[in-house]
């Protein structure tokens, strides 16, 4: 239950981050920092072609090279039957996964792994890769999502029949599946509208842009036990995927979590780990593999780009009567884009009686898409929030007022028909309506834009252990990789629950052998789900502390309560005892039954979504098309902020990544299907000088289903920026941009086209 207005001692405070010293001193160990005796260098040979049949691979010359200890190809990995496993939205098909980590019949994108080598030096590994002979039959390729979905496109998977269509098509295509969602009747809704806007939009594939490349060290021991040290967003998922892909049992593989230099969704899958493990198995030595930046761009999942059509109608009074969207989303070379999320999130902030969304999951000759911060939702938000801006202008209503008037509340229907839970959307709008930002006047070539966004947030499986020490300190260990401050938030929740000082709690992330299964750090789930596991463990410790106090006092345990870190008699009838602190009890633990500790394991439900509304001011240089972000204010329903500084950091980080997606970032392919900008010099992410200080405005509407009101804060902040900036550019120039990124050449071209059109009229 929510603690309501109770003042917390630790929840909502801003202690110094527990991982800070190790990180600023360089002691923190990331994926590439693990060193073992006789460790080998692992490298991956990748396809130079966007699409090619692999007729043969000859590794004999490479294997004969002195210093080469192992060569691995797909032939060394078990194959898997064609079957989708798990819920449709995130279904995994190991027939595809094994082909993504190592190509079998075909190379399906430039950078697709073909073989891996382990050698004593990097130079020998490079020479070995040069000696591997591959007979390719180069095939026609397709990069663009709409061209890939066209009937006569080159087929990546010659036997792929579109799922979700009845009757099933008789011919294969690159459309993996079609999904439909809707409530009400959009035709009726559009008939009731006074204004209707229908437009097409497209977004580019963008990379998560984490600073640390994928890296791991693997050791396969003589007894059949494997160990992996890797940088990931979830070492239990690394274990599960690697065990499956290499034919091992989960218990025979132990995965240790390294510190992580950014993931943003992109490190929820495996690339190197199964290959390094198989190399180690063959070589009998530990193998370390680290991607170059070029490999990160070409071979690890960016998020999808997409093409969409959005149609929304409203009355003159500002009531949205119907909304419809169709989305063609890039999956990369294998099925599995976030197209369902596009459909489920697109209209979610709004209370719309009639809505419909159709999604198409489309494969093309690009690296397999991976999750990226609210995967799918930012794509559809770009189109939807742009159209809402146009509609608001058409009826002469302010963009915030239009959103507030149509805002969903708790109980409003989602596009699935189910009602929304705790929902702080309108509050995110109202806080901006009253904000100083909206009063600030704009100058020439400047414009202001508004947009909103929705993300489900997540729950799911998490585990934690909590051990109390004789000196009254506590160690909380979880299976959640600390990407955004989870060690601090877990320690805060443990301290609050136990009633001890934050400084008395040490929070760590432990390996797969030391705590129960814990799903990835992603989906904005950890503070809620792993937090619930920590709270459960703390509650169990409190039960044990009460028992020990009861034993000490020789009273019934029901006569002991736990309050503010002390065991106290429940009433004067129990007896006149001095309260016992946690430390008093743990100091005597040996005499009262032994060490005190507990595990907490949950499949956390009761999730409430994240909502965000942003306002941005931009200035557009009419000579160059460069867009400068002048001011940015981002409000977000954060539930209750456990550590407000981390929450603000999440909001600011999401906004900055959204600015990059809006203005500069894109995968640029040549006619040959090869990526032209696989490096940070040519793939331009925002740098500090590109962005002003982003003002994060936290709207705290606690989740009633979590003890401390947690909702999840990591993702929704990336949903509004692209449309907010597009709306601001339109405000500054009168020109509506419908394609991302809105880079200087594109803005300039749009301005020039508008001038030509104006002159012609």
């Amino acid at each position, binding site marked *: 239950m929510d603690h309501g207005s109770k003042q917390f001692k630790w929840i909502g405070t801003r202690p110094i981050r527990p991982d800070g010293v190790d990180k600023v001193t360089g002691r923190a160990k990331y994926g590439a920092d693990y060193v073992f005796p006789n460790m080998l260098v692992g490298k991956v040979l990748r396809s130079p072609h966007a699409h090619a049949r692999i007729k043969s691979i000859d590794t004999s010359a490479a294997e004969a090279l002195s210093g080469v200890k192992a060569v691995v190809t797909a032939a060394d990995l078990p194959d898997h039957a064609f079957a989708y496993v798990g819920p449709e939205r995130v279904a995994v098909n190991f027939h595809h996964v094994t082909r993504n980590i190592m190509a079998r019949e075909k190379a399906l994108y430039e950078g697709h792994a073909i073989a891996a080598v382990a050698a004593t030096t990097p130079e020998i590994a490079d020479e070995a890769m040069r000696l591997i002979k591959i007979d390719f039959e180069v095939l026609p390729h397709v990069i663009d999502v709409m061209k890939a979905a066209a009937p006569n496109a080159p087929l990546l998977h010659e036997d792929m029949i579109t799922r979700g269509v009845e009757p099933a098509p008789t011919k294969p295509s690159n459309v993996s599946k079609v999904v439909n969602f809707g409530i009400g009747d959009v035709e009726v809704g559009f008939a009731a509208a006074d204004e209707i806007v229908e437009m097409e939009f497209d977004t580019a594939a963008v990379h998560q842009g984490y600073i640390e490349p994928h890296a791991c060290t693997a050791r396969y021991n003589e007894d059949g036990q494997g160990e992996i040290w890797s940088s990931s967003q979830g070492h239990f998922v690394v274990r599960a995927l690697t065990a499956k892909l290499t034919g091992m049992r989960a218990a025979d593989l132990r995965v240790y979590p390294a510190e992580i230099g950014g993931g943003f*969704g992109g490190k929820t899958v495996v690339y190197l780990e199964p290959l390094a493990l198989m190399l180690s198995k063959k070589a009998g030595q530990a193998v370390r593999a680290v991607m170059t930046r070029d490999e990160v761009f070409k071979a690890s999942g960016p998020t999808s780009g997409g093409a969409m059509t959005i149609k929304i109608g409203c009355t003159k009074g500002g009531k949205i009567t119907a909304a419809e969207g169709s989305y063609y989303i890039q999956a990369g070379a294998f099925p599995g884009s976030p197209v369902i999320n596009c459909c489920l999130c697109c209209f979610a902030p709004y209370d719309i009686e009639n809505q419909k969304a159709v999604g198409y999951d489309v494969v093309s000759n690009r690296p397999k898409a991976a999750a990226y911060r*609210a995967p799918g939702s930012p794509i559809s938000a770009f189109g939807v929030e742009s159209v809402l801006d146009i509609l608001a202008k058409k009826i002469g209503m302010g963009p915030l007022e239009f959103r507030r008037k149509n805002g969903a509340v708790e*109980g409003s229907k989602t596009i699935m*028909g189910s009602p929304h839970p705790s929902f702080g959307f309108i509050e995110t709008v109202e806080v901006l309506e009253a904000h100083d930002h909206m009063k600030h006047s704009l100058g020439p070539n400047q414009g202001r834009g508004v947009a909103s966004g929705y993300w489900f947030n997540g729950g799911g499986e998490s585990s934690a252990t909590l051990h109390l020490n004789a000196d009254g300190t506590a160690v909380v260990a979880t299976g959640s990789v600390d990407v955004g401050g989870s060690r601090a938030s877990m320690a805060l929740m443990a301290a609050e629950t136990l009633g001890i000082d934050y400084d008395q709690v040490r929070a760590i992330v432990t390996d797969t052998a030391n705590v129960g299964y814990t*799903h990835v750090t*992603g*989906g*904005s*789930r950890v503070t809620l789900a792993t937090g619930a596991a920590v709270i459960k463990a703390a509650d169990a410790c409190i039960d044990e502390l009460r028992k020990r106090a009861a034993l000490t006092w020789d009273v019934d345990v029901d006569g002991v309560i736990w309050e503010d870190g002390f065991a106290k008699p429940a009433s004067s009838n129990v007896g006149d005892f001095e309260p016992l602190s946690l430390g008093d009890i743990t100091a005597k633990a040996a005499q009262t039954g032994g060490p005190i500790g507990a595990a907490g394991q949950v499949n956390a439900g009761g999730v409430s979504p994240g909502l965000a509304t942003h306002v941005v001011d931009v200035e557009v240089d009419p000579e160059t098309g460069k867009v400068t972000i002048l001011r940015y204010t981002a409000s977000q329903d954060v539930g209750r902020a456990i550590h407000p500084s981390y929450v603000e950091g999440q909001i600011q980080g999401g906004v900055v990544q959204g600015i990059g997606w809006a203005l500069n970032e894109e995968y640029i392919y040549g006619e040959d299907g090869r990526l032209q900008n696989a490096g940070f010099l040519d793939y331009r992410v925002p740098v500090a000088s590109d962005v002003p200080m982003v003002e994060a405005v936290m709207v705290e509407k606690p989740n009633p289903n979590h003890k401390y009101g947690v909702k999840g804060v990591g993702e929704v902040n990336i949903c509004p920026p692209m449309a907010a900036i597009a709306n601001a550019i339109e405000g500054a120039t009168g020109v509506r941009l419908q394609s991302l990124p809105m880079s200087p050449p594109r803005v300039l071209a749009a301005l020039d086209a508008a001038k030509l059109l104006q002159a012609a009229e």
Partner: protein
Amino acid sequence: MIKPKVRVVLANSLSRQYTGGETKFEVEASRVRDILRALEDLFPGIREHLEEETAVSIDGMIYDDAYLQEVNASTEVFFIPKLDAG
């Protein structure tokens, strides 16, 4: 023990596959587990699909493991696509 009648709503894709297009039902249940049993009796095979593929929204709150969640006559239960981490 007489159990209350609970309103249950299935996603369209499920109804196409299992129920001939019907999406709304009333079944006697005091917990979600009762709903799964009742639907399985009506539409053999649907229970496994519901357990594997869907999350349960009970009056708006979403649960992945809802077996023991209590429901009553005023409850509306939706089976929706399972929402996993992104």
